[in-house]
């Protein structure tokens, strides 16, 4: 497997980032180099190896009501708010 050509603008868009032309040029070159280094992994035989799974722990704690952040605290950093709700640009016309 050779390092793929990565369409930086498309991937950035998936990540909700808009890059400047300078960033696009710079990151394209850098990421191609980094992905080239990652090609070493394709040579490791992993046929029968299971992927790493989280350590065995009780996955769930007991569902017991407990105090949590007050509405005031939870909204204390909201850039815009009204009536105990966060204001965002409309998503439906």
């Amino acid at each position, binding site marked *: 497997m050779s390092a793929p050509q990565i369409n*930086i603008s498309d991937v950035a868009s998936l990540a909700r980032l808009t890059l400047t032309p300078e960033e696009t040029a710079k990151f394209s070159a850098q990421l191609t180099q980094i992905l080239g280094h990652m090609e070493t*992994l394709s040579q490791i035989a*992993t046929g029968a190896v299971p*992927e790493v799974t989280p350590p065995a*722990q009780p996955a769930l704690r007991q569902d017991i009501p407990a105090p949590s952040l007050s509405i005031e605290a939870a909204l204390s*950093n909201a*850039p815009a708010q009204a009536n105990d709700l966060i204001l965002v640009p409309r998503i439906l016309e």
Partner: protein
Amino acid sequence: MSLAYETIATLRRRLLSKEIHPRDILKDLFTQIDAREKTLHAYTYLHRESALVAAEKADLSLPLGGIPIALKDNLNALGDPCTCASKILEGYKAPYDATAVSLLRQAGSILLGRTNMDEFAMGSSTENSALGLTRNPWDPTRIPGGSSGGSAAAVAGRIALAALGSDTGGSIRQPAALCGCVGLKPTYGRISRYGLVAFASSLDQIGPLTRTVEDSALLLSVLAGHDPRDNTTDLRPPEKFLTQKNGSVQGLRVGLPKEYFLPGMDSETESAIRSAADWFRKNGATLVDVSLPHTPTAIAVYYILATAEASANLARFDGVRYGRRATDARDVLDLYHRTRSEGFGAEVKRRIILGTFVLSQGYADAYYCQAQKVRALLRQDFEKAFTQCDLLLTPTSPEPAFPLGERTQDPLKMYLADVFTISTNLGGNGAISLPCGFTKSNLPIGLQLIGPRFGEETILRAAHDFEQAHDFFQRLPPS
């Protein structure tokens, strides 16, 4: 002598004997800070007034009563900023305490300030901070390491007694090595990460940076334990570490992994590490040659998994609930794009894009899934090695601190600086870095001791014996 030069253990004894008061410690620390912080820029925020108020009320009966501690700027502490050294968290004030912060408060410690870091802990030099770079106390033209570079520079520069850091790929140990202090990355699951701003959740651990191994053990004893708010924390009951000291080296099997002694590595570093191994042998340890054959793949595995996890974790910074919000957005998608593009720095963008790519359709199997499988092989390497030895002894960093600006345009070269620390995160093991020598130009060299999972007691006892037999930890950077 200024109290800023003392260890926590010594200050606790002096506080308990009423020889000194907590305000005396703060006074001396702030005198040091006033003299050195302008050069070092280790802090992003200082609690000048609230620390003095807390000092008057300190409960000395508690394990860290009256002891000021600094926090890396990615740990939430109620009412304080938590910038992660990013423009995107400008103006944010934490609405709650991280569990680690809450445990420090319960143990009586005083919050001294918040330390600089690479933005969102992404970097190995603290040059990726949006709040300005931090300098190495031993040579201000050089990096302090990263990402917990502010914590390491503060402790080594005698402007903090101890600081918390976080370590995802070496971010506590590498700056500790480069600044000449003690940095402990505990086993994955040892300390709760609740309230730590997440970078790569399968790798992140909180840990202490201190002057001595004893202080490291004191802090670990306070911080370790299960937390229902982070269910990756282990269920074992709380432990006190390093209650027995000295004499731990006799009969210890110390493994030297051949993959950590590379041809072409810095000769002064190699010589210091070989001398340290020799010290262990002369004091009754058996040196064992071991192999961790998948080590050469670790950087690739790490930068796939860590960036993939980061791309998901950092999706929360969208301008909606907290932090920076772009103005005049046309619609909600425009709000996300503009907020994130304006708020994140270059390295964070680079890693989010890389992480998004390795998870994207058509590439996830070749990159993300393959990296998870190779991670399993890296873990097996550690498990096998620990059937042959009790500890692994390696360099922490392949070289001492490099000059500021040397690698900022070459991210791959910067990533390669993590070669000796990232495997430990991938394996989930605990490891410590402590000073083991100095170069001819007076730069610190760090020794790494890696243990089996939950082997901190063995790590700390061996590290303490080595430290106390040498004077490296007592040397002071030029003032």
